[in-house]
C-alpha cells in the first residue's frame, strides 16, 4: 500500500470525525436558510480537505480520484451542509489547469460559457450550488477558435441573483455572465472533453449518493431493530427483512458504481465511468428512498429525523449533473450506434485500464 493511500485513509478518518461531531439538524437547517457555517468551513480548510486532489505546489496532497472517493462519500454520508465536494472538485480543476487555487468556497458551473476576443465571459448556468456563498466560481468557456479554457471568476464581479428553490434546499443560484472578466484563465486540460466538467460533477454526485445510501441503510437497520410493533422489533418480520435486504443491494451497487467512476477518471475515461455510475446510482437512489420510507413509516418524513434530509439530498443529486434518464440515454445512443456484437466488447473493456496502486 502506498503512502498516498495512508493519507487518503487519514483524511477520511478526519472528515468522519469532524462531520460526525458537528453536523446536526440545526446546521442543516442553517444551510437551507442560505448560510454557510463559517467555523465548520474553517476547520474543513484547515484539514486541507478541499485541496486533497491539488498538486503539492498548490498545497494539496495530489490524491487521485479513487483515493479521494472516501472523502466525497463521507460528505454524502453525513449530508454535510457545506460545499466540500464542490470546492474540492473546483480546486482540482484549477490546479490541473495550472491556475493558483484561491482560499474560500469555490463554486462550479457545469454548462459551457463563451469567451470573446478580449477574454470576457458570457453565458448562463441555470443552477450553481453555493454560488452566493462562494468567493469564486470556476467554469469552462469556449473561445471563437473552439478552444476550451478553465476560467476563474470572482463572484463579487457578478450580479447577485436571488437563491433558487431546490429539492434539497441547499443554496443554489443562477449564474449569468454578460462580458465578465476572469481573475485567471488557462487552456483546459485534454481531460475536459465535449461535456466539460459534467462527468466529474456527475461522478461526485454518484459518490455522494452512495454515501447517503449507505447511511440510510444503517439508519434503516437500526430502526428495524429498535422499533417495536405487535410486541417485537419490526426487523423480526420477514416483510421488513426483505425490504432491508433489497435496500442493501441498491446501496452496495451504488458504492461500487461511485468508486468505479472515480477509477475511470483516474484511467482517463471520465465520461463512460460517469455515464454508467450516474445512470445506475440515480435510479437506485429513487428505489432506495421508497424502500426506506416504507420501513420507517411516517417517521422519516419529519425533519426531526435525519432521513428527512438524506431523502431530499438524494432526490436533488439524482437529477443534478445529468439524471439517470439523461446519462442512460447518452450511453444507449452510443451503444445503438454500433452493431450488437460490439456490446460485449464494450463491457469487457469497461474496466479502468490502470490500477490504483
Amino acid at each position, binding site marked *: 500500500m502506498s503512502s498516498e493511500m495512508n493519507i487518503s485513509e487519514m483524511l477520511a478518518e478526519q472528515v468522519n470525525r469532524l462531520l460526525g461531531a458537528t453536523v446536526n439538524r440545526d446546521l442543516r437547517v442553517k444551510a437551507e436558510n442560505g448560510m454557510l457555517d463559517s467555523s465548520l468551513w474553517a476547520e474543513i480548510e484547515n484539514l486541507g480537505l478541499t485541496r486533497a486532489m491539488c498538486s503539492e505546489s498548490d498545497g494539496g496532497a495530489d490524491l487521485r480520484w479513487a483515493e479521494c472517493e472516501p472523502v466525497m462519500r463521507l460528505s454524502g454520508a453525513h449530508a454535510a451542509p457545506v460545499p466540500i465536494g464542490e470546492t474540492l472538485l473546483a480546486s482540482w480543476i484549477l490546479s490541473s489547469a495550472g491556475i493558483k487555487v484561491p482560499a474560500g468556497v469555490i463554486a462550479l458551473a457545469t454548462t459551457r460559457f463563451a469567451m470573446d476576443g478580449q477574454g470576457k465571459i458570457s453565458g448562463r448556468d441555470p443552477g450553481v450550488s453555493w454560488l452566493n456563498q462562494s468567493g469564486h466560481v470556476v467554469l469552462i468557456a469556449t473561445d471563437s477558435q473552439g478552444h476550451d479554457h478553465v476560467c476563474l471568476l470572482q463572484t463579487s464581479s457578478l450580479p447577485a441573483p436571488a437563491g433558487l428553490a431546490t429539492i434539497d434546499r441547499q443554496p443554489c443560484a443562477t449564474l449569468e455572465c454578460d462580458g465578465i472578466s476572469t481573475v485567471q484563465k488557462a487552456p483546459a486540460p485534454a481531460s475536459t472533453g465535449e461535456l466539460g466538467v459534467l462527468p466529474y460533477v456527475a461522478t461526485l454526485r454518484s459518490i455522494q449518493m452512495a*454515501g447517503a445510501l449507505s447511511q440510510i441503510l444503517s439508519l434503516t437497520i437500526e430502526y428495524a431493530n429498535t422499533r417495536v410493533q405487535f410486541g417485537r422489533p419490526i426487523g423480526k418480520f420477514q416483510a421488513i427483512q*426483505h425490504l432491508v435486504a433489497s435496500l442493501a443491494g441498491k446501496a452496495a*451497487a451504488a458504492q461500487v458504481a461511485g468508486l468505479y467512476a472515480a477509477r475511470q477518471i483516474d484511467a482517463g475515461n471520465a465520461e463512460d465511468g460517469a455515464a*454508467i455510475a450516474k445512470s445506475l446510482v440515480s435510479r437506485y437512489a429513487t428505489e432506495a428512498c421508497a424502500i426506506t420510507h416504507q420501513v420507517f413509516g411516517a417517521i422519516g418524513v419529519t425533519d426531526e429525523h435525519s432521513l428527512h434530509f438524506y431523502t431530499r439530498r438524494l432526490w436533488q443529486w439524482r437529477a443534478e449533473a445529468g439524471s*439517470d434518464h439523461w446519462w442512460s440515454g447518452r450511453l*444507449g*445512443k452510443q*451503444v*445503438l450506434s454500433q452493431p450488437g456484437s460490439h456490446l460485449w466488447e464494450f463491457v469487457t473493456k469497461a474496466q479502468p485500464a490502470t490500477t490504483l496502486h
Partner: protein
Amino acid sequence: MNPPFSFSPLQLPDALEPLRQEVRSFLADASSQWSGWKIGHSWTGFDRDFSLEVGRRGWIGMTWPAAFGGHERTGLERYVMVEEMLAAGAPLGAHWFGDRQSGPLILRLGTEKQRQHFLPLIARGEASFCIGLSEPDSGSDLASLRSRATRVDGGWRLSGRKVWTTNAHLCDFMIGLFRTGGPAEAEKHKGLSQFLIDMRSSGLEVRPILDLTGEGHFNEVTFDGVFVPDDMLVGTEGEGWAQASAELAFERSQPDRYMSSFPLIPLAIDAIRDNAQADRLAERCIGGALSELVILREMSLSILGQLEDGHSPAKEAALVKDLGNTYEQNIPELVRELLDSAPRIVPDNKLSELEGFLVQTVPTFSLRGGTREILRGIIAKGLGLR
C-alpha cells in the same frame, strides 16, 4: 460510517487478454450454427461434443492440479473463460456442474482414489455430473430432506426421490445428499452425507418433468435400493450439509447469476437498428441495462478477488445473486417493451427463439441456487437484523 459490506475492486490484469481473445475466436466459429433456442440454454444446455472440445482446449478444471488432469491456471483466468462462454450462450451443461461444483468438491474433500478417477474424466469433458439436492417436500427447506442411505455390507443402499435435477437423464454421475443419521424431524441438517452415484446403477430411475418451455431436462430421480459402495461417500459421513452449503455459497456470485439473458441484448440491438427503432426509449432502456451489467460485473469480480484472498463474503455473494437474478429476469421484458414482437417463435430466427425461450425460463432464475427469499434472509441476517 463504514458501509456494512465489502466490495473492494478487482482489476483483471491485461495479461489475461490473450486468453480472452483465444476463447472469443473459438466461440466465433463454434457458435455459427447455434440456434437461438440452444443459446438460451447456455450453461444448462447439454452438448457432449462441445464439452469434449472445451476439455481438449484445457478449459475444464482450469484451476485444478495437473496431477488430476487440471491446468493449474488462476481463478481469474477461469473467470475470463467462463464469462466469454456465457456471453456467447455456449452449451456448457455437459461439463458445467462437474467443473463448477462436483470437481471442486471432490478435489477438496474426496479420497485420493476419487480424485484420480473422477477429476481427469471431468477435465476431459467425458463425465457429466448432476446435483441431487431438492426433493418433492424439500426445496428451500433442504434440511427436511428424507431420502435415505442405509448402511449395508460393503456400502450403502439409497432410497427416496430427488426432483428438479437438471439433465439427470443425460448425466453419468450424481452427487446426491442423503440422510445417514436419525429422522429429519429430529436431526434436520445433521446426519446428512454426500454420495457419488453412478447414474446407470440398477434401481435408479429418471423421469422427465416438463417445464414451461415444454422440455424435460428437469427430472425426477427415484432411488429404489440403489447400491453405492463405501468408497463413493464424499467427505465425511454426517457432514454433507456443511459440504453442500459451501458449494452453494461459492456459486452465488459467478457470472451465470447475472448473464443468463445477456445474449438477447446484442440481438435486440441489431433488430432495433434494422427496424429504425433507436428512439429515446430504446436509448434509455439499453443504456440503463448496460450500466447495471457493468456494475454487476464489477461486484462479481470483487467477490472473486475476496475468494481468491481466502475470504468468504457470503452476504456480499447473496447480494450479487439477488441483484443479478432480478437483472437477468428483466431483460426479456425490456426487449419485449422495445421490440413488441408477436408472441410467436419463428424457426431459424435467433432473436425470436431466444426471446421465446427466455420468457419461459426466467422465473427459475430467482429460484435455482437459493431463492430470492432465502437470499434476502441471509442478507438481512448478515446486516444484523435480529
